[in-house]
């Protein structure tokens, strides 16, 4: 049987597809075009948007009843490739990325994540072309204002969040510096959610700056050098009390490296997820699945750490589960099936 073109398109290359125009193809094409119209129309309807939001809210509510990560971090990579792929100018790609970050922040906040950090600009990024650095700076400034405005508007879902810009602020222009100070000042009372934007940031710079701070403290006699410890150094880092640990680090666009980000936080006890999606394409569902995965494994981990509690014991002594099954590792030797009967040639057996 011959398949209509729409379905065959995956197997046949484009040129041969075009040439054949049978009646069947015409009909299916017509139908697809028509249904596309309806789909677009459906999407534009207010009710479907509302339904989608409702569904999303339910999903979030479901997830927030389980364990959720405390600190989620993003490496927002792939904006330029996204622009290239969809034929836009570089600036649009970065803008799309900024939008994605804001919408994901909203989702994270509702799920119950208390801190999100994002790698917006690396110190190494100053090596890019001046135009692009300029674009990024202006875009950053406008996003800053937008976020600050939304964080104090109590009707907005982002209300009550604190914004912190961390990194080597001395590298940015004066104009932007005042903007940053302003935004931090306006949002400083936010308690339930913190967004850290790492702007001119590298992790080595972060560690270095904390070291310098401590050395200066030692010099001012406020601290004795033999009292220096890891927690003290951690406290002095940019991310305040989230400096010690990052539960979930997500890097988009497929590179398998950390690129000088969150090294101190991530080198121990952190889940690092690499995905090949470009950052602007990284949407709520993808984030949702990742957090679900984290939550799933955390549930298992916590269960085994807690050991078997009394409640569980009562619960699992129900008839349909074999009680005699030993919990915990048993030796391989004991678990082997019984060998056949041992019998010598004289016929004696050890029974």
């Amino acid at each position, binding site marked *: 049987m011959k398949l209509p073109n729409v379905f065959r398109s995956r197997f046949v290359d484009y040129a041969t597809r075009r040439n054949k125009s049978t009646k069947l193809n015409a009909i299916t094409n017509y139908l697809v075009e028509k249904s596309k119209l309806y789909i677009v129309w459906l999407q534009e309807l207010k009710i479907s948007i509302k339904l989608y939001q409702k569904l999303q809210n339910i999903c979030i509510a479901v997830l927030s009843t389980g364990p959720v990560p405390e600190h989620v971090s993003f490496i927002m990579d792939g904006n330029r490739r996204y622009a290239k792929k969809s034929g836009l100018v570089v600036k649009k790609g970065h803008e799309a990325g900024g939008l994605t970050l804001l919408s994901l922040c909203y989702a994270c906040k509702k799920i119950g994540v208390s801190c999100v950090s994002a790698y917006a600009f690396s110190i190494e990024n100053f090596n890019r072309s001046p135009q692009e650095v300029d674009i990024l700076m202006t875009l950053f400034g406008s996003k800053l204002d937008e976020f600050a405005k939304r964080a104090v508007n109590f009707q907005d879902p982002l209300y*009550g969040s604190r914004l912190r810009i961390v990194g080597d602020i001395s590298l940015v222009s004066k104009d932007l510096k005042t903007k940053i100070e302003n935004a931090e000042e306006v949002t400083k009372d936010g308690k339930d959610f913190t967004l850290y934007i790492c702007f001119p940031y590298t992790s080595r710079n972060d560690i270095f700056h904390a*070291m310098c701070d401590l050395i200066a403290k030692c*010099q001012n006699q406020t601290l004795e050098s033999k009292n220096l410890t890891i927690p003290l150094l951690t406290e002095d880092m940019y991310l305040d009390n989230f400096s010690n640990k990052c539960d979930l680090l997500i890097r988009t666009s497929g590179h398998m490296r*950390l690129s000088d980000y969150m*090294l101190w936080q991530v080198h121990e006890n952190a889940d690092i997820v690499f995905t090949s999606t470009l950052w602007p394409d990284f949407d709520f569902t993808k984030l949702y699945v990742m957090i679900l995965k984290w939550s799933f494994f955390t549930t298992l*981990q916590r*269960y085994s750490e807690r050991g078997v509690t009394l409640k569980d014991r009562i619960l*699992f002594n129900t008839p349909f589960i074999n009680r005699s099954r030993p919990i915990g590792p048993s030796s391989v030797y004991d678990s082997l099936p019984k060998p056949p009967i041992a019998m010598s040639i004289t016929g004696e057996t050890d029974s």
Partner: protein
Amino acid sequence: MGTFESKGAMRRTAPPEASVMNGTEGKYSKLKALQALIGSLFSGKSDAGESLGNEENKTFWKKQKSKIQYSIYKVLLVTLYLVYGCYRYCQYEWNKMKIRMLNIIYNPSNTPQLIRQDVTKLEKIPKRLAAILEMKSESHVGGGSQGLMNDGSEIVCWTVSAGIKHLVLYDYDGVLKKNVQDFRKDIRNKLSKYFGTSHIPKYAVRIPHLNKIYFNDKDSSSTENHKVAIEISLLSNRDGRETIVDLTRTMADLCASKELKLGDITMSLVDKELVHLVGPEPDLLLYFGPCLDLQGFPPWHIRLTELHWEEDNHDVIYSVFIRGLQKYATCKINVGK
């Protein structure tokens, strides 16, 4: 041997997925997982975690859930968990099959020629290679410190055959460091298996933390020809955060005694010191576990390092090694651009 680390002073906490997938046999079985999931139905939010702030903020658009609503959501969540668990199980089996196939495709069978043949096809190889090793429990096949040393020496042989000059072996507790004499013998035995007993490539084992270098199998006193085919550095958790704090302390002392000015401390100075104390940054980091877990690998040194691991793989196998090199050959590093 010197006493440099109190044994097992700290228990490492692994990230959730790694700890579950890496759990020794019997610790996490399917039944156990099911128990945990159903158990989580009855555990309240309070012991489910210390996720703060959820109860306190009741802005008007964020209503507090009622009890019934909460339990419905909880049931839904467990259903989602179950669905995900089934999916993950299928994925696990699939990955296992993939690894088995890869093992058939890439089989070095102790021949350096075959390994070199695989490597010469590549465009570039890393200058420095690092590997995170993990001690499996004694009861496991290939577990204990013996198994760890065996794995380590195997990687040394592959690295020598591939023509890479520097290798960093990391294990959290520093077992390799403590048993460095045995490890050197192990390397020797393995290398003789690969290259024949009469032409064992020269190697040096370095312990940066103790500032010691051992050449070949003999004692370090022999200062003959020090050109080696491979230099192996042994690192442990001690070389991570703690070394950075040590460095800070030393610098603070130097500043206090006016030998160093605060303004003289720069990034490059810190970097230089850390390279001296721990070693240079590796180009490629291999992890032979089921799910990426950096286990406290020195944080300063993983800045641009490419990471490679094979999902759901539990053993130190050649296919992970060669696939890591293949991936490295195709990746392009552009700092900041």
